[in-house]
């Protein structure tokens, strides 16, 4: 194995893969890449398995030294990453020579960039996944975000890399949108007509107090009409819940698995990757679709992401 040395870690850099779904009975949420689409494409460009562990870099980057070299691919947001002052283009494999460092700046567009490495990042798996669950300090690299001085094992530098490229149009189709499509939540009926209209037509601003657990949204007050105390129940990722004080919260990958707040809507599976690319102060909107439409969009996205011919030139 080769090494990766963290010279500076950035705001929050964690090891992520597709997460550990299926442990709800233990109270464990899936975690995993906030933008699973970018992680998948970055890995496929390196001919890795789609869910190979990578570094998820958030809002402001870090500096990573590759003493033994590596082949890497950057996927997701553009942090203006450079090697020796030379810009590294996103969405294509690059050979990093031994002793070189990749320097990330602050994001110029979205929230998260994946530093994928050919051969992956080697950490001990927890419940079948390399993903970091920051809240509980489980998984990933020592259960936490990376710090200066951490040394991780990575795949070896390969001599011959295929210069794979995405087909034109692929990134546009999968572009992270600020208009999120939603289906009705299980307590949709608890909300008055006014709240439903506000959800459909209002602007919501992502608060600074947002993270992988959930995004707090400032916007129109979506007060529930029913005042009954709700019995806590399982909450899906992407659930939009409203607290009694009117705070709107979008549950995300490191969510708490159950909750007692009414859920007015839920972001559809095909748009969850867009949530992972939202930054504090971004303005977002919601658009309601039917369950059948949401399913069609999901199936179509999965087909595209599973088709080498449609993805690569």
């Amino acid at each position, binding site marked *: 194995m080769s090494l990766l040395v963290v010279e500076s870690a950035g705001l929050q850099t964690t090891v992520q893969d597709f997460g550990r779904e299926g442990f709800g009975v233990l*109270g464990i949420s899936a975690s995993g890449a906030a933008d699973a689409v970018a992680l998948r494409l970055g890995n496929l460009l390196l001919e890795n398995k789609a869910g190979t562990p990578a570094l998820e870099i958030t809002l402001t980057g870090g500096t990573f030294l590759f003493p033994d070299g590596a082949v890497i691919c950057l996927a997701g947001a553009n942090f203006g990453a450079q090697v020796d002052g030379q810009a590294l283009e996103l969405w294509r494999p690059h050979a990093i020579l031994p002793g070189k460092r990749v320097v990330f700046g602050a994001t110029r567009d979205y929230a998260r960039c994946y530093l994928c490495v050919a051969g992956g990042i080697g950490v001990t798996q927890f419940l079948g996944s390399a993903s970091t669950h920051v809240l509980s300090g489980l998984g990933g690299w020592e259960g936490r975000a990376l710090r200066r001085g951490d040394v991780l094992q990575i795949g070896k530098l390969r001599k011959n890399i295929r210069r794979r490229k995405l087909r034109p149009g692929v990134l546009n189709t999968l572009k992270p949108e600020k208009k999120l499509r939603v289906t009705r939540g299980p307590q949709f009926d608890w909300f008055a007509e006014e709240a439903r209209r506000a959800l459909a037509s209002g602007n919501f601003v992502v608060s600074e107090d947002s993270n992988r657990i959930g995004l707090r949204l400032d916007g129109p007050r979506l007060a529930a009409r029913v005042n009954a105390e709700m019995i806590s129940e*399982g909450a899906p990722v992407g659930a939009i819940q409203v607290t009694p004080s009117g705070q709107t919260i979008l549950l995300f990958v490191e969510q708490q698995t*159950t909750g007692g707040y009414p859920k007015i809507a839920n972001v559809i599976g095909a748009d969850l990757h867009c949530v992972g690319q939202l930054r504090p102060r971004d303005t977002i909107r919601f658009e309601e679709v039917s369950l059948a439409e949401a399913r069609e969009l999901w199936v179509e996205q999965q087909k595209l992401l599973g088709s080498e011919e449609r993805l690569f030139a």
Partner: protein
Amino acid sequence: MRFQAASDQSLLVYLSEEIGAAAHERVVWLMRLLQREPIKWLRNIQPAYCSLLITFDAAAVDHAEVQAKISELERHAKKLPAAEPRLVEVPVCYGGEFGPDLDWVAEQRGLPAEKVVELHIAPTYHAYFLGFAPGFAYLGDLAEEIAVPRVETPRKEVAAGSVGIAGRQTAIYPFGTPGGWRLIGRTPLEIFRKDREPMGMIAIGDQVRFRPITRAEFLATRRA
């Protein structure tokens, strides 16, 4: 049984509309039926007081098909033998630095602090389900005399092992996480350890009792 789509990839199955032992029994029953045979499209099961949230592979099945499968399971299921409940004892040092809200609870309910502790240790609690964070068990039912609402603004960090109460429930925080329950004590035991089998000290369906310990006992256990 009542079905409700929760998202485009999940379905809520309500087995009761009221918290209680009967609801819990039905929840665990359906959970075990779903765990008994491998179901290809089943991605996750999240039990709660009266419901199960079932997450499925939406490219393989839709809500109607999941609903049909569950109805079929229910119709054909033989009664499963009841699982032997495990009794878990949790030592707790009440009050002081470990239970910063104990006096507040006592004052709110017009009871001496010792009486609050007495009422907290009296019942054998039932672990209804795990949620919020890994290993966080929702235990009930807390005595009505010491039921209090959550704090208005959750604490940014609650120490691992803290014992909290909210409404008719009590729980132990397995990790240092944000938390909104009133803290009355702390256990020196590690509630969740990834290098232990099982990882969580408390599982769904377990019975739990609290035992008061002194500060010295707390510190001795911590050091051990």
